[in-house]
């Protein structure tokens, strides 16, 4: 009985301490150290270099506020963070396709936001060519945020909090789309995931189990050609044998290039935090990693644009699949998923 009391007391104290921390300025204040450009040594050179957009605490803080503010949507119902949830590495947790204003559905799975500065293009079809202009796409899409960029600027200009924050960030009262987009790029560009157990294993800070190590070996032999380490993507577009869905009419990259050889080709997504970003594929058709591996080994469809690796075929036993999945779960990066810098600042209402 006494022990139970001690346990409950300890729990209450722990809650109070953690709430006090979240409620404290220290949790929410962005410091110069928080926005330092300090990239993992084993990653390649970033594509987006923050040229003319060096992050500052004030600009990053403004980007964070905008990211979580539904003011960016037509009816103030949908923020970027509505679909891009921190707990799911900024994918939409347990949602096959995107949700927008008025309960409208999109046609593609919300991609996670992580290691974006190493991407040379964005979206499942690679239609967007620069991190800074990427947000215009969901903001103006009529089944997502359905807002006009010019109208957002008008709304921000008449909002006293934003007027003060833009002034704080830029030293003058100008509010325009360029500044809006640049601070969003600071916020999303600094989302770097490189502290998973896999990363720690590479750095000699952690060990992997026998099953995980076997999974890593199988992964390197069968998957890593497209899902290239350490980013777990080669930034290419490939047809991975998914059946064309005649309700979505989504032909992938072909819609961008106009070239038939790109039919049903989609971005090779990173597998970092894959445990948290389900469901999988560009339309979220698979719910589990087991279904994904069954697809690659058994159920994929042969079409003229099928990727060469699948033409040859991938062979994995049931035990192999279990081990590959064990390895994939070592890519979950709790440091990133719980990084206070990317938390919704509206959590504290004061």
């Amino acid at each position: 009985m006494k022990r139970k009391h001690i346990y409950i007391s300890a729990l209450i104290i722990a809650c109070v301490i953690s709430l006090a921390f979240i409620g404290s300025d220290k949790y929410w204040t962005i410091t110069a150290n928080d926005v330092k450009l300090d990239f993992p040594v084993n990653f390649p050179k970033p594509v987006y270099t923050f040229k003319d957009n060096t992050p500052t605490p004030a600009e990053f803080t403004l980007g964070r506020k905008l990211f979580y503010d539904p003011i960016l949507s037509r009816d103030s119902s949908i923020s970027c963070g509505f679909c891009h949830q921190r707990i799911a590495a900024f994918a939409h947790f347990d949602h096959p396709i995107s949700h927008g204003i008025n309960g409208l559905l999109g046609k593609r799975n919300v991609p996670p936001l992580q290691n974006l500065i190493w991407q040379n293009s964005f979206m499942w079809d690679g239609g967007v060519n620069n991190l800074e202009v990427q947000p215009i796409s969901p903001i103006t899409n009529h089944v997502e945020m359905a807002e006009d960029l010019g109208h957002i600027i008008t709304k921000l200009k008449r909002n006293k909090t934003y007027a003060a924050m833009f002034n704080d960030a830029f030293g003058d009262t100008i509010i325009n789309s360029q500044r809006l987009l640049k601070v969003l790029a600071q916020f999303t560009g600094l989302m770097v995931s490189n502290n998973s157990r896999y990363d720690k294993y590479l750095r000699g800070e952690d060990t992997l189990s026998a099953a995980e190590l076997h999974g890593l070996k199988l992964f390197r032999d069968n998957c890593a050609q497209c899902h290239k380490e350490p980013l777990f993507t080669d930034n290419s577009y490939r047809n991975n044998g998914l059946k064309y869905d005649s309700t979505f009419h989504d032909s992938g990259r072909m819609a961008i290039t106009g070239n038939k050889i790109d039919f049903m080709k989609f971005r090779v997504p990173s597998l970092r935090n894959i445990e948290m970003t389900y469901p999988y594929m560009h339309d979220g058709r698979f719910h589990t990693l087991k279904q994904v591996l069954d697809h690659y080994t058994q159920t994929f469809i042969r079409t003229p644009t099928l990727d060469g690796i699948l033409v040859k075929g991938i062979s994995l036993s049931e035990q192999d699949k279990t081990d590959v999945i064990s390895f994939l779960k070592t890519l979950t990066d709790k440091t990133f998923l719980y990084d206070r810098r990317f938390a919704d600042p509206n959590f504290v209402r004061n």
Partner: protein
Amino acid sequence: MFCIAALVAAMSFTAPTGSVTITFSNYVGSSLLKLDSAIYKNELGQSYTVSKFKYYVGNIQLKKADGTKYVSDKYYLINEEEAASKQITLSNVPEGNYTSISFILGVDSLHNCSGAQTDALDPVNAMFWTWNTGYIFLKMEGKSPVSTQPGHLLEFHIGGYMQPNNCIRTINLPIKNGMQVVEKTMLHIKANVSDLFKTPTSIDFSKISSVTDFHNATTIANNYADMFSIQ
């Protein structure tokens, strides 16, 4: 003493410059463009109206007979709806006789890939594709009774900076008798909407009434390549 005088003279010497104001006047055939109300006819005799006409002009170069040139790195969005946009001023143009002007209709690939920009290239100007990044170089909208679009709309949004759908066109216009740039110089350029729909390809509005991606885009771009003339 002479050396010092020469040095002072050299330091204070700068070639005299002037400004060149270019006025873009949008026409349909031989009459000034009138939005919405005027009814025009294409080569096939199909009638149409124009409700919107805007385009990007950039990389303006003024060339002298000896090959020297003045280059402007700015982009301008000429918009029929905004009178002020149709007049642009190039400053610090070295004085002298210029025999031709060239510019691109469109936005070069560098500026299509440079992220968030401002002024004429601000995406709020509704000349920006979000689903397939890039600027719309020219936007012409209107109506034609033979159009099969809802509301008989005509919608020509022409853009694309990558091969094989590159719609950037370089316009080179010789200036008859040359243009003497002095303190303030004026140049009048005429853009003809009707040229969008003829030479080399005559556009049948019952077949092509909406171009909003790469389909048919270069056909229209080849047509607008000869849309301009010096007035």
